[in-house]
């Protein structure tokens, strides 16, 4: 938004200056990048590679996250990952059942009764067990942290814009939810102040009811007022769809779901022919998705400042895809270093291709525009109303960079 228009350049073109202007990236790009990293992580248990993937994800997050509330969630995901690893290792210690040769230490055994399938607790703890739990846990933790990276980089409200048109109403109500949730805090505060002014006691069951019920009543009244406001502004005008589209939608959806049913059967029954499995499953899903898209055509809406896929977005998504693809390539060429051996315990080693694969995921940290900071630009709520720009989206009339014909 800075420098509306440099002479001689149409406003739509992405800026060619370097470093590029600060702007938030399309959330889809971040999700594709993170899913690429997660897929790559799922293909290996090599702790060195997994640690590299973790480092790459963390570095990109630190470089490219904004200062919105969701950007702070990355730490939570790191804690979750640590919890997963600890859980896995602890399970191996408690329920391990004494597999493995290199016994590290022996705990007193507790045999359980027959109803518990003859499980015994504790006993010998072997290094193979612990390491196996650690490797597996680290892999899952890395995948979870990759998802966390996407969560802290991608703007959830912008993501709502990408909902297909058939989910327009549900998206709109989620937008209402996201808008109302912060107001509830204020509502609670108001009710408590009113209670204090009346000299009501602040504790106990009565106080809880005395706060929750007025807040609920307030919220419900607000929702009806909002509905009246929406109706009076013509919301729901497009409710009718022509019968042919409805029929096509219905047929596509039902056929798609039945296809998914067949595919599910094929996947879960080993005797079924392979064509009945995953292909049918995905095909049914695709048909149902097509029904969703056709059904969405009844809602015609315009996008306010639509998110465009520019080179930076393509590069980010491409980096993730490259990481995943290179890792798959390695799995075909030399799979030994991807799954370090446990049965003779050996030190995990790195080979060149997977390292390059993981490093490809680092590119967005340098080649994408920086996110806007609140010091320079207004906070990250320029788009209001997410999916719709409709309900509750009053105010905040930002002017779009003007498009004027080039002289």
């Amino acid at each position: 938004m800075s420098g509306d228009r440099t002479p001689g350049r149409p406003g739509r073109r992405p800026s060619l200056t370097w470093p590029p202007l600060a702007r938030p990236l399309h959330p889809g790009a971040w999700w594709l990048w993170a899913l690429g990293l997660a897929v790559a992580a799922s293909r290996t248990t090599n702790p060195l590679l997994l640690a590299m993937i973790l480092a790459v994800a963390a570095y990109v997050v630190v470089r490219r996250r904004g200062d919105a509330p969701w950007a702070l969630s990355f730490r939570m995901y790191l804690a979750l990952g640590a919890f997963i690893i600890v859980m896995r290792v602890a399970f191996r210690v408690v329920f391990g059942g004494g597999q493995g040769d290199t016994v590290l230490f022996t705990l007193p055994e507790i045999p359980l009764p027959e109803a518990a399938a003859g499980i015994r607790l504790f006993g010998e703890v072997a290094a193979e067990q612990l390491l196996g739990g650690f490797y597996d846990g680290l892999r899952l933790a890395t995948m979870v942290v990759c998802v966390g990276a996407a969560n802290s980089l991608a703007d959830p409200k912008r993501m709502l814009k990408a909902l297909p048109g058939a989910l327009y109403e549900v998206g709109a109500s989620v937008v209402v939810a996201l808008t109302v949730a912060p107001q509830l805090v204020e509502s609670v505060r108001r009710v408590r102040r009113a209670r204090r002014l009346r000299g009501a006691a602040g504790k106990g069951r009565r106080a809880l009811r005395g706060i929750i019920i007025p807040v609920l009543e307030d919220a419900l009244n607000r929702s009806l007022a909002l509905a009246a406001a929406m109706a009076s502004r013509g919301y729901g005008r497009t409710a009718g769809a022509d019968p042919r589209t409805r029929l096509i939608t219905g047929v596509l959806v039902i056929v798609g779901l039945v296809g998914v049913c067949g595919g599910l059967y094929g996947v879960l029954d080993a005797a079924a022919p392979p064509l009945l499995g995953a292909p049918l499953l995905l095909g049914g899903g695709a048909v149902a998705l097509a029904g969703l898209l056709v059904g969405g055509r009844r809602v015609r809406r315009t996008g306010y400042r639509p998110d465009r896929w520019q080179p930076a977005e393509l590069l980010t998504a491409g980096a993730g895809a490259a990481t995943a693809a290179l890792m798959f390539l390695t799995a075909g060429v030399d799979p030994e270093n991807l799954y370090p051996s446990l049965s003779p315990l050996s030190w995990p080693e790195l080979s060149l291709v997977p390292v390059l694969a993981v490093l490809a995921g680092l590119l967005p940290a340098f080649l994408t525009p920086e996110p806007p900071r609140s010091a320079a630009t207004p906070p990250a709520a320029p788009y209001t109303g997410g999916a719709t720009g409709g309900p509750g989206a009053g105010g905040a009339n930002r002017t779009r960079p003007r498009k004027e014909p080039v002289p």
Partner: protein
Amino acid sequence: MTAATPPGATPGATPPHPAPDAPARTEAPSRAGGPDDLAAAAPPAKPARPAQPAPSAPPMKRTSAARPRVTALRVGPRAAVTLLVASLLGLAMFCWPLLVPPQPQGVAHAAQAPLLFVVLLPVILAVVLAELTEGGLDPKTLALLGVLAALNAALRPLGAGTAGIETVFFLLILAGRVFGPGFGFALGATSLFASALLTAGVGPWLPFQMMAAAWVGLGAGLLPRRPTGRAEIAMLAAYGAASAYVFGFVMNLWFWPFAIGDGTQLSFDPEAGPVANLHTFFLYTLATSAFGWDTGRAITNIVAIAVLGPAVLATLRRAARRAAFDTPVSFAAAEPQGARRP
């Protein structure tokens, strides 16, 4: 399902509702209602009715028989079929560790199954929600859905982390009870979606949580209509406890093979049959979450429904009445203006 409500019954059922308490609260509708209260704004019916319901019933029972069934979100036949098929599919996806074939050769066959499910469940959920809202959502339903989802999303972090005190479900159950199964389903899904967006909790687990919570709301809407008063609260509390355990059970079941990996005695064993795996899973869920999280969730539900239930139910019903979902809306041409212009 609920679409089977006889549509002819609804417009007539609403106006007589305030009639039985006629003398004591004559002015109540006009005071509480105001111009926006369409349901209560039908006073002419009042004097005609007072003899009809037996006034000997205790005041608690008064609302029982005549209480109109509110369906904030009508589930049409097509949506009902979609919902049914999708629920079956979802259930199979939750229970995949038990359904995977026991032969060793089936392992490679079904290895990608959970990954496929993670991709497909969002599609299925989206299709169901789209079908539920097909034909446009009433603005009042939309706003109520949004506001209740916001309340749920705000309630969720209150208890998160403290040993299973999970506060999402009680309002979901009560709202499903009042507004019907379709609304309960949509509310369960949107609540968890909004909450995940607010707390940056989007991930592969989200569709599963949404589906399970949607079932909780759906089931609350499908409970028998008859009980009222204390019996209703008791029924809802029992449902809250049961649904808490079932929710924990299916969420555990789906994630069980990932949660502890293989190589322990409580691990998922692809070569064992479903019965053996179910046994192992019972032990796993007992060891991990049944006593802690699930019981905590059940107790939270019971206590919250028992303590706050009556008041919250009354509040929600008042809102449902004021929203007047079942009132038919019709537009008529304004004659004088049409006459003026030839």
